[in-house]
């Protein structure tokens, strides 16, 4: 029987950082192979000052690594807020959208673009950003990852992001949503020791925040 969700840790970065670790995220003496099922939830509020050329790739991109668990098959979609100002429905953009197989990292750019990007402020030619003012020349976005192992079905993750990208080259456009899912059978009964969030192509700026919860059959902290 699973225990209630347990809060495992919080980090607010004091420096611009290329990687974020959560270590010892299984109770002492246990690991993934100790459980038929487990759930982890990671919430990230990340900040960037990177301004992409067109609001799409390349930009800051991040990776999620569960050591000893690899060979992820990934499907990713982004949501492109094309015309929210006039009240029309959201539209699914064709870009960036990706499927890929056999990746060592879950949600790895470029093939499965976990992006964090800002448009250009107060630039009439390139459009303005939707979610930040000219005084606040950073883009913040929220990303939530649910990581699950279920019995013999291997590992799976679901990622939902919001406000992770604003877009230039348009007067009222931005990417404001992103969702992806991935799974692997490889290493489903191994013993990952670390959750590693890697900013592969940029940095997590100081002030970025990370929270981790776990739901397992054992809580011993």
């Amino acid at each position, binding site marked *: 029987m699973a225990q209630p969700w347990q809060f495992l840790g919080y*980090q607010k970065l*004091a420096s611009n950082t290329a990687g974020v670790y959560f*270590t010892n995220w299984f109770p002492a003496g246990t690991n993934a192979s100790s459980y038929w099922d487990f759930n982890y939830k990671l919430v990230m509020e990340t900040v960037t000052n990177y301004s992409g050329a067109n609001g799409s790739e390349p930009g800051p991109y991040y990776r999620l690594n569960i050591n000893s668990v690899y060979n992820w098959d990934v499907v990713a979609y982004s949501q492109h807020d094309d015309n929210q100002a006039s009240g029309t429905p959201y539209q699914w953009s064709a870009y960036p959208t990706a499927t890929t197989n056999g990746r060592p*990292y879950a949600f790895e750019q470029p093939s499965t673009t976990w992006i964090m990007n800002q448009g250009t402020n107060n630039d009439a030619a390139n459009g303005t950003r939707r979610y930040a003012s000219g005084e606040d020349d950073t883009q913040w976005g929220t990303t939530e990852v649910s990581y699950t192992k279920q019995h013999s079905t291997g590992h799976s993750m679901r990622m939902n992001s919001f406000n992770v990208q604003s877009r230039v080259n348009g007067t009222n456009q931005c990417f404001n949503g992103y969702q992806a899912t991935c799974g692997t059978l490889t290493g489903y009964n191994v013993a990952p020791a670390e959750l590693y969030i890697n900013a*592969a192509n940029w940095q997590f700026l100081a002030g970025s925040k990370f929270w981790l919860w776990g739901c397992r059959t054992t809580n011993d*902290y």
Partner: protein
Amino acid sequence: MTNPIVSSHDCSTGITTEREMTDEETEQMRASTQESLKQVEAENAQNVAANAKLATTREKFLGMGLTQEEVDLIVPADQEVRPVEVAVAE
């Protein structure tokens, strides 16, 4: 040149520490980035070839007297070719 910073939180103690990446970690990060970019380049090459075939197919249909709108309904849209570039952190 110093290595990038990493922040690590030990869930068992609640202690967060900041440190420089080891040379091994830095090299691993760079290597995996390069590997990813190579994968994109390979996918791009496949997509460029596929797009060329799609363009030829569209021309053939147009030559048969179909309208552009009809051709667009028959022939799938071009596949995405992604830019390959690595940003340099400040």
